[in-house]
């Protein structure tokens, strides 16, 4: 399988990572190499095999649907790049 520059551009966009045009070629080569190596999984017969979820039989535990914390606005905002008056300040998202 070959991954083209266009594929990389698309994947970079989906990943929300700005990749400069001049790096696309090299990344396409690297990703082609890695995906080519991964292709060997096609040799494995997985017909009727369940995908693995856990090594120890375990079901996700349930808990009461109650509020267990809160009132920590200062903690939540402590690491914000920008915060004002108890809010995160973010770039304008709607024109």
């Amino acid at each position: 399988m070959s991954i083209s520059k266009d594929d990389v551009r698309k994947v970079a966009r989906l990943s929300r990572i700005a990749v400069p045009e001049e790096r696309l070629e090299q990344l396409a080569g690297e990703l082609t190499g890695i995906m080519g190596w991964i292709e060997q999984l096609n040799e494995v017969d997985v017909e009727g095999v369940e995908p693995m979820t856990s090594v120890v039989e375990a079901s996700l535990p349930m808990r009461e649907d109650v509020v267990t914390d809160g009132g920590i606005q200062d903690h939540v905002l402590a690491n914000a790049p920008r915060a004002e008056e108890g809010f995160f300040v973010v770039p304008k998202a709607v024109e």
Partner: protein
Amino acid sequence: MHRERGLILHFEVKAAYEGDCFSDSMDLRMSDLTKLTLTAALEGLESKAFSSRELTQAFVDQIETSNGVLNAYVVTTPDKALAMADASDARRANGEALALDGAPLGIKDLYCTKGVRTTACSEILGEFTPTYESTVTQNLWDAGAVMLGKLNMDEFAMGSSNETSRFGPPANPWRRDGSNQKLTAGGSSGGSAAAVAADLCLAATASDTGGSIRQPAAFTGTVGIKPTYGRASRYGMVAFASSLDQAGPITKTVADAALMTELMCSHDEKDSTSLPVETPRWRDDVHKGVKGMKIGIPKEYRVDGMPQEIEDLWQQGITWLKEMGAEIVDVTLPHTKYALPAYYIVAPAEASSNLARYDGMRYGARVQGGDLTGTYEGTRASGFGEEVQRRLMIGTYVLSSGYYDAYYLRAQKVRTKILQDFQTVFQDVDALLTPTCPSAAFAYGENAGDPVQMYLNDIFTVTANLAGLPGISVPAAIDSNGLPLGLQVIGKALDESACFQVAGALEEAAGFVAKPEKWW
């Protein structure tokens, strides 16, 4: 220090190393306190041979003089450490000493530590300072341990050489004979391994997604264990690949590893994959011996291009276990070769999902762009390093529309096949013995050109992650270049006991006491 005190210490150090490093000294110098094992240090504290403040100060001093060269710590917390040491000494004076009371530890930068910067060695977390504590580290502080600082690692634990850290790599305290070339301490827990090997902490926390505890341990002559998936809580650990990530320690001895693992593991409601099981007293397993145990030797772990010395060490390990009364059984794990390619679908896929949270809005470093998407893209392009970007793109690719079944789902099915291989052989054997890594520590840059070549480092360790099984690396020999090599023991799910039992026996047989010659 008066005479009696020196004698007590002298005895303990000898017991800890079975060597004669302090043969003629009646008094133990303060700097020598750092050479103690965790177990010996706790005995020294208990017998009042020294205080936690004295012990902690010795580590603070060592870090001060050594870290500039070794770069094992990315944050040091000497004031906090000494305050915790004083509190510990007060508890001990009141007869309220806890399991790890007064023991100075290093913490991998992946664990959130309240009030202490935690960035998983990534630029994108900026100066992130958690307002909460990870469950694993909280367990250690609840046991009285002292925090010396945060340890270097590959960015988001993605790497096998610690070269992807935003703070630059640590140096392996070990070097090839007659060479001053810097070698990798392995990855991703390279800082943890370097700190333990260089006596910059008694023991360290680490984490293992594909081998990140066991490979650095093997490269530095230390012990490292990844417990069964679900034994330790992932709460407050910076997430990489959630179905593979598991906490564990790097230590100087198997007994120390058993003690640390006991205290790190717990059932935790804050992690839904944390198993509701009791944590056994693994310390009691270390010296039980292997008489009557059946040990499997998987033939698929004999790979092309593996150095003869590693093959020889594996044979030596087999001989040791036989001599101690274990029965050796040749076994086959036919899907072993598919483990790494499956890992390189599952881990990047889960990472691409986990790392979506780093958008520069709520925490971390933000790079303002022309519009919202531009801000996201700029923030992530400047905040993530090359390897992380590469893996996120692979993850996004394999999860993208139309590819989920072909890649992620297929890889999860291959995981089932790998686990079934293990379950089949574990019907006949108690544990498996393999080399930990296909090579000794390598120099920086030696494997950097080709990502796949670097990934092959994890070929023997990654199977235990995919199957969720416990695996331990124990130092067993020095190669012809003067570098340590490790053997790995893989156990059944929740059977860390067998791992500690076999590793303890190997440690005893190998009599591994070598330490790197101090050059730093």
